[in-house]
């Protein structure tokens, strides 16, 4: 097993550009409120990672209920919106239209460009060593245009799954089997990740790789901030723990090739939200943040990554 960490800081403002952040948040809250109006039609869910029914209430956030799985500690929303409701949220709301607008794209372009290059640097070696490299890459997302551009420079043309993945539909080209499937920041949003990952498994060649990144349910930022975390409930319905992700992959038939938490923003997120919401956190965190410098934060962040305790997870499954 291998674990990936990141050395060096990304400024969180690149991911949340201040010039659009207020507008984005306001629209997003309206879209959430619109979703909540339909909560009588929300559906109950078992643990999206291990399918266990045993759970305890974790917290409520903006009217949405989050549960903690008693088996794998994955945090998940239940009851939750249906795929149709999510389609409205992402595609038809003001918020949905805004995140697809040119303004939003432009504001995020520097971050997305850098991110796409790094994602491509992971995908290309994986594809080159595949016995089925001619079968190509399946990208489970409608919005990876930047990544597609970077891959195109290496003469790789990925196929995008259509329609949007919150429909759990990952079958864009019938019987075609891919060498690699990539799902960056998708699985936390899916109403039924178990069904989605089973379909991905079917779409891969033997020894094919699924590479995915998700917001972690066992990251320092989430465990410290809990209900105060910077969650967008509808977009973070499944917060897999490292253990839960392993179970999700194995249930679908994958063997786990890598589980890493290369997130490098935990300390920045905790500091920002603590200040914004005037929180008093646990004794250790308060002492640490009040008395230690940026160098210590960087070291601590490195420890979190290496110990699989950071805010974002990278997982690779291999089809047996």
């Amino acid at each position, binding site marked *: 097993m291998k674990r990936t*960490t990141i050395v060096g800081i990304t400024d969180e403002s690149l991911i949340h550009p201040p010039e659009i952040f207020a507008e984005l948040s306001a629209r997003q809250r309206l879209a959430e409120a619109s979703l909540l109006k339909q909560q009588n039609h929300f559906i109950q869910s078992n643990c999206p990672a291990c399918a266990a029914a045993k759970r305890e209430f974790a917290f409520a956030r903006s009217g949405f209920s989050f549960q903690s799985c008693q088996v794998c500690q994955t945090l998940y929303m239940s009851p939750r919106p249906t795929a149709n409701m999510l389609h409205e949220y992402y595609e038809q709301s003001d918020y949905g239209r805004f995140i697809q607008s040119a303004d939003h794209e432009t504001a995020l372009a520097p971050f997305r460009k850098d991110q796409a290059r790094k994602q491509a640097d992971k995908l290309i070696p994986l594809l080159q060593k595949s016995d089925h490299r001619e079968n190509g890459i399946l990208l489970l997302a409608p919005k990876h245009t930047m990544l597609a551009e970077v891959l195109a420079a290496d003469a790789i043309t990925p196929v995008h799954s259509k329609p949007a993945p919150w429909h759990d539909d990952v079958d864009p080209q019938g019987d075609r089997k891919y060498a690699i499937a990539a799902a960056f920041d998708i699985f936390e949003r899916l109403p039924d990740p178990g069904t989605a990952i089973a379909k991905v498994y079917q779409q891969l060649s033997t020894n094919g790789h699924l590479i995915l990144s998700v917001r972690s349910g066992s990251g320092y930022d989430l465990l410290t901030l809990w209900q105060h975390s910077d969650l967008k409930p509808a977009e973070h319905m499944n917060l897999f723990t490292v253990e839960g992700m392993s179970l999700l992959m194995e249930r679908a038939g994958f063997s786990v090739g890598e589980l890493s938490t290369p997130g490098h923003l935990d300390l920045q997120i905790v500091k920002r939200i603590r200040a914004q919401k005037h929180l008093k956190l646990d004794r250790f965190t308060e002492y640490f943040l009040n008395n230690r410098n940026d160098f210590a934060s960087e070291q601590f962040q490195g420890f979190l990554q290496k110990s699989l305790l950071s805010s974002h997870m990278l997982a690779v499954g291999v089809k047996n």
Partner: protein
Amino acid sequence: MPTCHTTPASSAFSRSRLPLRAAIIGMGKVGKTRARVLTARDDVVFVAAADIDPSKCADFPDIRVETDHHALVSAPDIDVVFVATTNKFAPDIVCAALEHGKHVFCEKPPGRTIADIERIMAAERANPHLKLQFGFNHRFHYAVMEARNMVDSGIYGKVLWARGVYGKMGGADFEQIWRNDPEEAGGGILLDQGIHMLDLFCYFLGGDFNDIQSFVQTMHWKISLEDNAFALLRTPTQQVAMLHSSATQWRHKFSLELCLEDGYINLEGILSSTRSYGEEILVHARKNMTANTGLCPAPQEEKIFFDDDHSWELEVAAFLEAVKTDTPVSSGTSDDALRAMRLVFGIYAARR
């Protein structure tokens, strides 16, 4: 100088016979490691071993034990022979085993001289149906394999230079062990350990180094062989590799840095049974030329930790796969061994 007979052997091996039957010649530390790998597999049975000290085979009570290897390399019920003896004896045993129709896996180095590997290759050519592999197991470490994938994928362009440090501290009995006896070993730390780094230089840079400069010295230990070697190697296409192989590295160290046109890949540490070479880590990054000023920021690096070392298992698996499927050996070939030996002796010859 002993010579090998180069007449083709009448093979006792039937390709369809599975599981294969294996013997190990030399049951020191490395021989025992190979034995444990073999006993964990179901396509091969570890049936016999030879060692001048038969008590070294005590952990394997069910096998046939000989004190003379001749009985095993000629035994009709043996298909594959693993050679883990001192450098002095390995070439003769490899040649004898090939002549008797055995597939052979031999630990590095493949003898004490270039002539040793050349006569092994003559025996190999006379028996083209047999498989011969050498134990350059570093190629089967996960960090090395990942680095090779990255280099091959071309994401960072071509390799410009490599810088390798491989060192150990010797130990309390360092002056007495066979590895520092010129008669048994043929070379010092460079031939014993540095050869792995030279093999990796070849693995990543292609390996046709034709310009060599070096210092080869005995700096500390009371031995007649070298305890430190420093070398600069250059290919005709101007790629340069820099080596320091040391037996006075008081904390064990493995470090291989690869600089490519658009980024870098550094291997820091390598997993071993004692973990004395530290964790096995691959650090890589794309060069960062985005700054508008002359001061480019340090690139954001990805650091990959590898928790397991299955290099011995993977290496044996690759060898047995070549035997079972009658396909060419893919890594640790006699050509690889010859190339590494030419570099070792090129560095000795270039010493100033």
